[in-house]
């Protein structure tokens, strides 16, 4: 089961040129300096895991990349072009950036199949029959093909999250953002979602994944970025980061999550 066999950006590793670049990015929520001088460059085909304490700005970082949150200074560019400010251009950008949320956010009033076809039909103008055929293939690949005519509320959390991944993939995004995709799941469903993500990573998808799943980071990530209090404190390849963190904040954090 290879998720990205037909994906145009299925590049083989090692990762290529810079695809997403954050350059001196700052963001405030009122008095809270939630992103502080963030510099991060993600290469094509790279899988970056973002890790850090709750409230450190990981979600905000993710959301700035498809401009669900605006930034106050600095620049973010995708594939060499700065993010457009508003309107049609911005919608087009968002179509090129897939996003998977912690709480799935499947469209509650639409069937599983319609959830996956909505974007291609409305945004890309793909004919309905063609979009459905492709949606069924994607749903089969993430293992929920049999649920196509059901509604989101009828599916388990793990199934819903896999549908959400299929929905994002249907747009053939250049990069996929995952914001704690398994945090809302019961333990027995976490693996089925991570398996799909590992598969995607193997297929060459560029991914930014906010997660505390160290197994995933070790298996699939090229790099771990550790955030704390709105700053990128440390980044390294996974094995080194987990076994030999340099900063005190990372040591402290790993100590806490390893205790469980």
């Amino acid at each position, binding site marked *: 089961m290879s998720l990205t066999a037909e994906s145009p950006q299925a590049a083989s590793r090692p990762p290529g040129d810079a695809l997403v670049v954050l350059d001196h990015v700052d963001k405030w929520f009122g008095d809270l300096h939630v992103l502080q001088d963030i510099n991060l460059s993600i290469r094509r085909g790279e899988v970056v895991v973002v890790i850090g304490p709750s409230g450190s700005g990981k979600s905000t970082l993710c959301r700035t990349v498809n401009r*669900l949150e605006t930034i106050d200074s600095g620049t973010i560019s995708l594939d060499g072009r700065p993010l457009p400010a508003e309107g049609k251009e911005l*919608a087009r950008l968002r179509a090129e950036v897939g996003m998977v*949320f912690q709480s799935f956010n499947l469209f*509650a009033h639409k069937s599983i199949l319609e959830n996956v076809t909505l974007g291609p039909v409305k945004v890309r103008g793909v004919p309905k029959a063609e979009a459905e055929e492709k949606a069924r293939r994607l749903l089969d690949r993430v293992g929920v093909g049999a649920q196509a005519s059901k509604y989101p*509320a009828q599916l388990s959390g793990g199934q819903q999250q896999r549908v959400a991944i299929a929905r994002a993939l249907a747009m053939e995004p250049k990069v996929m953002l995952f914001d704690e995709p398994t945090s809302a799941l019961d333990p027995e469903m976490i693996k089925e979602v991570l398996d799909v993500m590992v598969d995607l990573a193997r297929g060459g998808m560029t991914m930014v994944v906010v997660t505390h799943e160290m197994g995933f980071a070790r298996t699939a990530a090229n790099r771990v970025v550790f955030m704390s209090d709105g700053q990128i404190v440390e980044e390294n390849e996974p094995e080194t980061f987990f076994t030999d963190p340099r900063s005190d904040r990372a040591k402290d954090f790993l100590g806490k999550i390893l205790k469980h």
Partner: protein
Amino acid sequence: MDWLADGYGLVLRAFLLTIELGVVAGVFSMLLGVLLAAARVGPVAVLAKAAATYVLVFRNTPLLMVFVFVFVALPKVDIPQLSFFAKGVLALTLYTSAFVCEAVRSGVNSVPLGQAEAARAVGLTFGQTMQEVVLPQAMRAALPPLASVLIALMKNTSVAAAFGLIEATARMRFFTNDNADVRTVIFLVFAIGYVVIVELMSAGAFTLERRWRVAR
């Protein structure tokens, strides 16, 4: 019941006018109300403010005053000649759309923010996000309050009786004037007419509600 045997054609025609007023004003109120709600929750501050002001004015003005305004004040500003029926529809629409707006807005607010975010993340524009994702869910949530608003509208058409429109309530007054001895009966017959119309509307709303619940 001579009055009814002789005049039942008039009774039917009067109720038909009541229903016409209710349906035509209902359609316009829904259109205007949804637009107002979209303006209120939309990103354009000026539109949001304008819609909020509209709601503030028309929701807090007695319906009778809106009628007086449309029938008495508007002719002064020399608006092209409107029929009594059109004026009645206009007054009812101005008033009812403010309530529709609030019902729809509460429905929109009941849709989790994540729904709109997911739609935007897929690349839908603001308009598409509203049309494809937010409004369909908002309308489901708004259905019970909307049904109340439209039922109130159907009964509010009776205010038009005072402005030269011979709908059900006006017709009832003519009948009671001419048949003082059977006033109570006449009143009951007309009341039953209203009850039947409103119950049909309730049943319709209930059916829709059930169908939409199954569809989730």
